[in-house]
């Protein structure tokens, strides 16, 4: 019985941690959308900034992957 409750908590926690992935998607979309908005205003400057775009996406994505990691740890390691 107690093990069942603990396992239930584990699964609920993993599900909540999964929310982080969706929130990171908001962040990545924000970065890419703002880049596009700026790039359409000044297309000639956009080419040089793709590296910055990918660095920004990588940093936003890292936090989502942390929550994915937490979910995985809850599911398989705890």
């Amino acid at each position, binding site marked *: 019985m107690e093990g069942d409750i603990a396992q239930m908590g584990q699964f609920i926690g993993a599900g909540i941690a999964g929310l982080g992935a969706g929130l990171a998607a908001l962040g990545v979309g924000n970065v890419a959308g703002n880049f596009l908005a700026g790039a359409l205003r000044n297309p000639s400057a956009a080419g040089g900034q793709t590296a910055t775009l*990918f660095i920004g996406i*990588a940093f936003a994505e890292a936090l989502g992957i942390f929550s994915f990691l937490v979910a995985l740890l809850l599911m398989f390691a705890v």
Partner: protein
Amino acid sequence: MAEGSSGGLSISPMEQFTVKPLFGGSEINLFTITNVTLWMFFAVVAVTLLMVLGTRGRAVVPTRAQSLGEMIYGFVHGMVTDVAGKDALKFFPYIMTLFLFILMANLLGLIPTAFTPTSHIAVTAVMALAVFITVTTVGIVKNGTEFLSLFWVSSAPLILRPILAVIELISYFVRPVSHSVRLAGAITAGHAVMKVFAGFAAAALIAPLTIVAMVAIYALEFLVAGIQAYVFAILTCVYLKDALHPHH
């Protein structure tokens, strides 16, 4: 496999990441040859074929393999000079090696029934720790105690600087974690999603839809394989820039 069109759907998306010894037994020691070893070997062979054999002709009008090799070389060269500056070119071979190895491991892992070494934290963490140790050593050797000014944001108000120093210090030491988990996480998640959709295909009713979705996801994974290799290499460049020019 795809048996039992109704009822018992059995999807085990994480099974594909099991490390197995190739030659009998189930015991894994330090030098056991496993499927990870095999596919890392294939990645190295692919890089060698492309960059050594492909460009051996040194033709003025390049063959397909040679022009692909030259394109990758020019791409990474431009990335290192753009992000980290001309004096980082000493580390160009290192970053090129990392980029090509990760790219080839990711792409070969997309072959059905293949194994992806970069889906394991053990593989990516070694690469990320190597980058971290290299970059920190270079920063300290090149700049001495000046390297610590990386953590002291001189453009911020004086009261904020100690707080920012703590945050910068934490974010500096989290770097190898995020660097390795990003690659392993993206690849693991992508392959698991493909496996889950493949499991849905066993239900005959939605099979056509699932197969269309799998083609789309496969294309996305192809993109991710390239982007993650690019992101790993470009973050190495960013860290290298911080080590070579630590002033904010």
